[in-house]
């Protein structure tokens, strides 16, 4: 009995005490708050971002920081829960006084976190995925985006690419999206685009998020007689639909958006007709930046493999570039000011620099590249090199 009472008392005391533990008191560093989906459903493309940020800024701080000040990352795990993300964003802004907020989470987390950014007037940088509010002609003052994908631009590369690849043969296109806003909107746009280019769209599938078995969808796509399929959504859906199609004996070609897992997966699947496209260069390029990521990742023993760190690394480069132009002491306003006119050299990780202006918080030009597996060379090869898409 006494033990139980003690248990309760210790617990309640601990509960109360935890809230009065001073979190972070040191004022010197640049404070950057990040709400990242590290655990919880749908976190697999987002969790590696944390790894990349960690190793990048460890390196930066080891070299003396930015303008003589270290960068302190305050990372919270949203578990992909909207309310939790909102509370954490508020905590980062009001309690930890960060001057830049980062969000890497599913699209359902935008609204709550944007609210906080607006309320406290703090710039918000999206990593992973980002909302159309950052696009020109009128970008939201507080929202910025350095991510790989961008709604309505990705398919502007993908659909013409399919059109081009299928020259000379009949083209029947099947489309697939997951029933999450981003994926669905993009596929709707792709359908519109394809029709305007005279491509015959024979099937469009929208899969619910927790699908156990993609075979029914693949069956429908196959029976529609498609020669090409284009899938835009989480990697799991894209690749599982492809595998389901192959299991059913479908012989067509398949284009998917290349998420962070794409490079390793191309090597696993070894299928000549499986194409991926994206804005990041693969490690086959082996630029200096790639070598650095690989070396740092191996040194720091990151949780995720180095091939998945490019997105986060680019985000970190952007942050460094922004903070460099922020005079000490850093405030949200100064950071925003700096972000409104920044040009980030992506060092070969992308096809070109990321440029932000006052009215464009996405980038002025998007660069896309397509990859595929070449079984003759037994290697991943470029199917179409950097193609610039103007963002207007």
């Amino acid at each position, binding site marked *: 009995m006494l033990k139980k009472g003690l248990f309760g008392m210790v617990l309640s005391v601990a509960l109360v005490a935890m809230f009065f533990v001073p979190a972070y008191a040191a004022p010197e560093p640049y404070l950057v708050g990040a709400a990242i989906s590290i655990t919880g459903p749908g976190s697999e493309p987002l969790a590696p971002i944390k790894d990349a940020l960690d190793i990048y800024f460890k390196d930066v701080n080891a070299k003396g920081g930015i303008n003589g000040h270290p960068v302190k990352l305050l990372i919270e795990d949203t578990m992909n829960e909207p309310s939790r993300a909102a509370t954490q964003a508020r905590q980062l802004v009001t309690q930890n006084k960060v001057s830049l907020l980062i969000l890497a989470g599913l699209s359902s987390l935008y609204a709550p976190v944007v609210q906080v950014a607006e309320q406290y007037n703090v710039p918000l940088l999206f990593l992973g995925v980002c909302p159309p509010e950052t696009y020109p002609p009128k970008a939201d003052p507080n929202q910025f985006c350095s991510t790989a994908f961008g709604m309505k631009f990705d398919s502007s590369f993908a659909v013409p690419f399919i059109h081009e690849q299928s020259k000379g043969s009949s083209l029947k296109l099947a489309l697939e999206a997951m029933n999450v806003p981003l994926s669905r909107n993009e596929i709707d746009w792709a359908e519109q685009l394809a029709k305007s280019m005279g491509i015959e769209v024979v099937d469009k599938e929208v*899969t619910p998020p*927790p699908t156990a078995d993609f075979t029914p969808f693949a069956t429908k796509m196959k029976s529609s007689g498609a020669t090409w399929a284009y899938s835009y959504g989480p990697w799991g859906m894209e690749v599982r639909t492809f595998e389901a199609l192959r299991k059913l*004996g479908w012989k067509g070609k398949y284009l998917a958006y290349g998420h962070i897992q794409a490079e390793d997966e191309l090597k696993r699947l070894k299928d000549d007709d499986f194409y991926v496209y994206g804005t990041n260069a693969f490690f086959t390029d082996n630029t200096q930046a790639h070598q650095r990521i690989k070396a740092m990742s191996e040194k720091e023993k990151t949780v995720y493999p180095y091939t998945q760190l490019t997105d986060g690394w680019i985000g970190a480069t952007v942050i460094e570039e922004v903070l460099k132009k922020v005079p000490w002491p850093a405030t949200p306003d100064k950071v925003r000011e700096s972000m409104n006119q920044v040009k980030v050299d992506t060092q070969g990780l992308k096809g070109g620099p990321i440029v932000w202006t006052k009215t464009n918080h996405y980038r002025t030009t998007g660069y896309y590249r397509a990859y595929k597996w070449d079984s003759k060379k037994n290697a991943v090869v470029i199917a179409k090199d950097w193609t610039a898409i103007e963002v207007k």
Partner: protein
Amino acid sequence: MQIIVNTVVLASLYSLIGCGFVLIYRASRVVNLAQGELMAMGGYFLFTVAMGLFKEPIPSFLVASVFSVGLGFIIYFFLMRFMAGESVFAAILSTIALGILLRGLITLIWTSQLWHPLEKMGITNASHTLVKDAVISTFGIVTVLSAFFIYLALFLCLKFTRWGLRMQAVGENPLLASRRGIKLHNYYALSWGVAAFTGGFAGMIQSCDAILEPGMVAIGLKTFPVVLVGGLDSLAGVIPGAFVVAIAEVIAINYISPQASEAAPFVVLLIMLLIRPWGLFGTKEELERV
């Protein structure tokens, strides 16, 4: 034709997951909401074994099965044992908490990356043409066959062995069983072990046939419509239940709207509760028990 094959494979998968649920429910009247997590754990065990111990599929499957059974025992002895005699709601909540714990462990040990145990074992998932237009993958066949054999084995065990007989007795009247010298804990643990095995086995096959990711726990939600349509306490009912749910899902995908396929099993569940709440093969008395 292809649709029928797909439905059979899906139904086999559901019945594999569902039978563990029914076993636990029958033995201890505990509703296990962590069935999806047990399934995912099976997949992850297979992956670990395939990566670390053996490269061959059969020993990998065997060792992973042993791990699954062990997990079931551990869950029983470290958690569910204490929930005996608590309210229905508390027992449900504890299985939910167990699910959260297991999901956390999965992210902790295997991170949230996508894995492919098949690749580690160095085998491929080839397709076979059954009849014209109907194709089935190797692991699709494995799903159907293993569902068949596991059910056969369970039926034989429950019907003809001492253990089966006693399991039945424990489920029917634990007090009396315990008065006759039957060690309740052993039988409850056994039911958890077998449930973790059947669920885990489904997870192993699923991870080979598709992919291994934490999100696969969501399949576990389908268990409830499956078992309720069949009858909560009826092992035989799981199979028709699984078929009804799989068919409802396929129909929703093909003829209504793909998103409806998520809600369709639950609509089926509600209709069932409306017209025959004790399920196709369940016993009516069960309604009064819970």
